């Protein structure tokens, strides 16, 4: 298990599929988490493996992706339903939940990545 700081945000693929959220393309565009090379290797991951990310606010299973440009200790998840399972919902009076910079832990898992529809059901 490793500790990370989680950031969610827009990607090109997420944006290009955002108006077709019930398709496989959208599922693929948002169901993963990028980790630095160091963290990816430290967890003993291979491409296609899954990780469980836990924060104070929830947990979610997503695919793990190695990103050479990411700093150690950071995790990036495309904005969307998977990221939103674990981000900080409190707005501190601004109306805006904290979508970026949430502390969490990542571990390797064999659990299944839920589909978009299943995700709505478990909330």
């Amino acid at each position, binding site marked *: 298990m490793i500790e990370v700081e989680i950031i969610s945000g827009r990607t090109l693929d997420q*944006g290009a599929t955002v108006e077709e959220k019930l398709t496989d393309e959208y599922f693929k565009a948002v169901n993963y988490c990028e980790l630095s090379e160091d963290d990816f290797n430290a967890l003993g991951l291979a491409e296609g493996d899954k990780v469980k990310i836990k924060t104070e606010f929830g947990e979610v299973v997503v695919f793990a992706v190695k990103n050479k440009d*990411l700093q150690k200790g950071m995790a990036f998840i495309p904005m969307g339903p998977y990221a939103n399972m674990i981000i900080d919902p409190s707005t501190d009076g601004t109306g805006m939940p904290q979508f970026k910079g949430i502390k969490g832990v990542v571990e390797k898992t064999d659990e299944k990545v839920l589909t978009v529809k299943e995700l709505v059901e478990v909330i």
Partner: protein
Amino acid sequence: MPETKEEELTNVICTFCGSVCDDVLFDVEKYKGKKFCKLGSAKFSKKERIKAPMIDGKEVSYEEAIEKAVEILLNAKRPLLYGWASTVNEAIRLGVILTEKVGGVYDQCASVCHAPGTLALIEEGVPGGSLGEVKNRADVVIFWGSNPMEAHPRHPVRYSVRAKGLLIKDRKDRKVVVVDVRKTKSANMADLFIQIKPGYDYPIISALRALVKGEEDAVPDEVGGVSKQQLKELAELMKNAKYGALLYGLGVTQSRGRDRNVENAIKLIQLLNRHTRWIIWPMRGHYNVVGAGDVPAWEVGYTYAIDFSRGYPRFSPGEFAANEVLQRGDCDAALIIASDPVAHFPKASVAHLKKIPVIQIDPFPNMTTLISKVVIPSAMAGLEAEGTAYRMDGIPFRVKKIIDTEYWSDEKILELMLEKVNEKLGLR
């Protein structure tokens, strides 16, 4: 099939991101866009639609769906009417009036996007400028916590990086800086990339303010992962610009500090304006998210998080922003238009949305469709419906209707809703 010649294509205006590109083309016969970026061409392509109006998954007529929606809104003590960023001003205007009539809460997508910037703006004002000015004049452009290559792909070419203008004749005439916690795709196009630690925007901006003021001793050797030397170079670059533009994104508004980050950045820009000309502007996301804020501002005085339950508008983001309302369980019905909160709100907010009757108006099925009681499909603005949208810098554009459709426009749907509400309230 041979490529259709450009002059035979129809000029349209892209209704995806806040860049609102007005130079894009559409081939009606092939149903295909030209010159769009990946995001725009995806929107202007054939894809699954909501087939017909539905109540509890059963197909009904527009009139029946609207009747049911009105019943839900009027039976609610305090409905939430949320979304608005991907529709035209004419529809938003009706939405604000509708919210007032039903005594609900009006909130819009900026509430999870750039609204913290609005709070900063209320405090500080905003030294701003249009994208035209950026294109023609800006010799230093800083993208701070924004990633145009993925969020506004043609923005760099049309306005801010490779764009040529009156005084900027070549890419070499412009210095481009990217400040981010990640090495994004946009970082690769920059002359200078400054990687900062997450959540350290505020102290870094404070350090830059000190340096611009000449108070170098106040700055420690390193701030938020950036060396003092690098900060000094950035401060110098900013002071020496002829026309600088700080274009910030959600990296600033969604991280620790939120509105205070923007407030601090505005103070930095104010300070720089004692030396030279600088502007600061948010990289707005949805094509008409500016309208979703400006229209209620000219109707009732506020841009988001507006409660009408007492019969007059009250603004309070800590109380009336959609996520606050939902997490407190303070609304008993919702109308969601041109947006998908089930996909984009934290789970704590979605949990309440699942418990109350939801009405959805949207051209495309999305995650909110899955939990909606009443679903009303609409025409896609920019292709099947016309209206006015404000580009991210507030410049109005008339988006076009070039295809006939059976789908009603948002404006037409809301018009009938309002008429029914008035009828039921005995107002007409």
